């Protein structure tokens, strides 16, 4: 797929192994991008596609995406599904409990702008962007697993292009 770019490293073979020289930024970004553990946060039908992506056919694990049941262990929230006004403070709490650096993927139409069915509902938050900062939006109702994989690859690219210390400014 050509997604794993070669790290700019200097490698010199020595007897019994090799010495690798690279920058801390490269190593940190590489490690963080390839081990995005996501929080189990499925609130509606997008969660079904999220489960499908995690299952064997699409195999989320090969990108280093492993689901976590606790926000303390997670790097990423995939907000999969409608966020109601009652759910919004809970989402914010979960986001606040995550350790930095933390990322958010808004999956599906409901999390982007209230969705194709709930745009005139009294109970649905019109987009999660004003609750938590979003890194990647994935449109669709619900998005297919391919779209979700594409969104995660986009996020990984963003992380790998990041300069050291960028996340502290958030």
């Amino acid at each position, binding site marked *: 797929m050509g997604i794993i770019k070669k790290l700019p490293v200097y490698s010199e073979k020595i007897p019994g192994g090799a010495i690798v020289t690279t920058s801390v930024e490269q190593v940190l970004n590489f490690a963080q991008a390839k081990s995005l553990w996501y929080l189990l946060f499925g609130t509606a039908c997008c969660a079904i596609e999220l489960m499908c992506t995690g299952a064997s056919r699409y195999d989320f694990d090969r990108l280093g995406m492993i689901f976590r049941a606790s926000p303390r262990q997670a790097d990423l929230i995939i907000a999969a599904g409608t966020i109601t006004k009652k759910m919004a403070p809970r989402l914010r709490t979960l986001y606040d409990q995550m350790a930095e650096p933390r990322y958010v993927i808004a999956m599906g139409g409901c999390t982007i702008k209230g969705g194709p069915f709930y*745009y005139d509902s009294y109970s649905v938050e*019109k987009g999660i962007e004003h609750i938590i900062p979003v890194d990647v939006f994935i449109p669709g109702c619900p998005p297919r697993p391919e779209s979700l994989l594409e969104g995660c690859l986009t996020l990984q690219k963003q992380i790998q292009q990041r300069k050291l210390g960028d996340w502290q400014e958030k």
Partner: protein
Amino acid sequence: MNNEELKAYIESNYASLMTFCESGKYDLWFEVKADNLVRVCQKLKDDPELLIDYFCNLGGVDTTENFEAVYNLASSKKKIRIDLKVVLPHENPSVDSVQTIWPAANWYEREMWELYGIQVNNHDNLTRFLLPDDWDQGYPMRKDWDAPDFIRFPDL
């Protein structure tokens, strides 16, 4: 007891309390005055011919002229279903609670109070449980209700 027999029975025994309103496709539909509601419900439950022991559903209706509370009742022993409709004024609508007769009415009445603003008298726990706790934007299921964050569907 089929629907014709039920209608004849109610019209002969409850003539002063229930008015036959309209027969839907399935259930008979009677109108009850708000003052008589609890008495009628208690009578329906105790009547040995009817034994209405199951509270299926309670719905609110906003017809813009008045409010309606629609009670869907059933009897598990006599295998009959019956609907009651209470017409309420549009200003200060209030209805008596029937939770002493069917405890299941408790949450339905809370929901109706929360979404339609129909006051329920003699209710033991009239608090919010669907809307956010700090909700102060009125009653969202009313026809004249409007939310500031509605996204208008464009006129095509």
